[in-house]
C-alpha cells in the first residue's frame, strides 16, 4: 500500500514534528526531522501493510533522524526552549507547566511518554518503533510518570 506524500504530510506533519521535538528540544531541528521523514517516504518505493504501518514508519524515521541531528557536532545554534515556549499559545497555565516539566525529563523518558500519551501507542508498539524491549518501555514509562508526579504533583494524577 502507498499513499500520496502530500496527503501524508497534511495528516502527520505536526505529529512528526512533535515527536522529533521530544528528541531535539528545538523547533528548527524537529522541523528538519519531520521533513526528512516525509522526503524519505517520497523517495522510497517501500510497500506498507496499511496506513498505521506508514504512520509508525514515519515516526521511527523522524525520531532516528532527530537523534542523528542531536548528536551532530556541527549542529546550528537554536532558540533556547524557554524562549521558544514564549512563542507558543498555551490555553492555560496547567498546560504550560506540563509542557515544561515533560521537556525537563531525560529524552529517553519523554519520548516514551509522548508516544504513549500523545500518539496512543501501546508499550509493545512503542518498543517496535524505538527498537527497544517492552520491559525497557515499561521502565521508562514508569520512571517518567514518577518524575512528572514529583514535579507536577496534583496536576498529574496517579496511575
Amino acid at each position, binding site marked *: 500500500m502507498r499513499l500520496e506524500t502530500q496527503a501524508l504530510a497534511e495528516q502527520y506533519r505536526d505529529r512528526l514534528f512533535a515527536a522529533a521535538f521530544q528528541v531535539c528540544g528545538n523547533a528548527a531541528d*524537529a522541523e528538519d526531522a519531520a521533513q526528512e521523514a516525509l522526503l524519505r517516504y517520497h523517495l522510497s518505493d517501500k510497500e506498507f501493510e496499511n496506513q498505521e504501518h506508514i504512520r509508525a514508519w514515519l515516526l521511527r524515521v523522524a525520531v532516528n533522524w532527530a537523534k542523528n541531528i542531536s548528536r*551532530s557536532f556541527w549542529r546550528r545554534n537554536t532558540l533556547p526552549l524557554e524562549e521558544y515556549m514564549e512563542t507558543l499559545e498555551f490555553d492555560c497555565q496547567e498546560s504550560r507547566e506540563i509542557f515544561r516539566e515533560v521537556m525537563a525529563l531525560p529524552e529517553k523518558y519523554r519520548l516514551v511518554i509522548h508516544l504513549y*500519551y500523545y500518539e496512543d501507542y501501546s508499550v509493545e508498539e512503542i518498543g517496535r518503533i524505538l527498537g527497544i524491549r517492552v520491559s525497557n518501555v515499561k521502565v521508562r514509562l514508569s520512571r517518567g510518570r514518577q518524575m512528572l508526579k514529583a514535579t507536577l504533583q496534583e496536576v498529574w*494524577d496517579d496511575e
Partner: protein
Amino acid sequence: MNNREKYKRAFSVLHASQETDWEAIMKTSREHNMRKTGTKLLLAAVLVSLLAITASAAGVRLMQGWGGNMEVLSVEGGMEVHVHTDNLTEPVEIRDGRMWFVVNGENRDITDEISQTEAFTYTFMDEQGITHYWVLGLNGEELENYGYAEYLKSDTWQGGYSARVNDNPDGTTDAVWLERWKQENNCPW
C-alpha cells in the same frame, strides 16, 4: 480531565511550519532520478584535509581513524597524514540483503536509514578524546554501492577522508548525501 487529555492539550501547541518545502522535495526527487540513470564507475577515491599543525616528538602516532584507515603521525616540523587506500577497513557489512554498521563495536541495521540523498551518521569519542564523525550514503540503488566519510576532531587538529566517492574539480564530491550533510552541518571540508 485525565493525564492523557491533559498531555494532548499541552502538546497540541506544537505545529510544524505551514509551508512544506515541496519544491525542495521535488527538486531532490528529480536529482535522485537523474543520478540513477547517470551512474559512473566509482573509484576508491580518498581525500585528506589537514587544518592545523601542532609540534610533537617525531614518529609518534597522534591519532588514528577507526580500523586504522587513517593515521596522523608526528614528523620533524609537523605532521603526516596517511590513509591506507589499498586496505581500508569497511564500516559496514552486507548480510542477507541488509546493511549493518559495524564501527566501534556496533552491529546496527541501517538499511532503512541510508539512501542516495540522506546520510546515516554516527559519532563517538575514543580513548584519546578524539571525536569521530561517520557519514555513510548510497551512490546507487544497490546496497553494495555505498560511500563513506570519517572526520576526526580534537582540540588542536581536525581532518578526515572520504572513500568510494568521486571528487569534482571544485572540491565537492558527486555524493548527494555527503554534500547535503556537509552543508547542513557547516562542515568545513
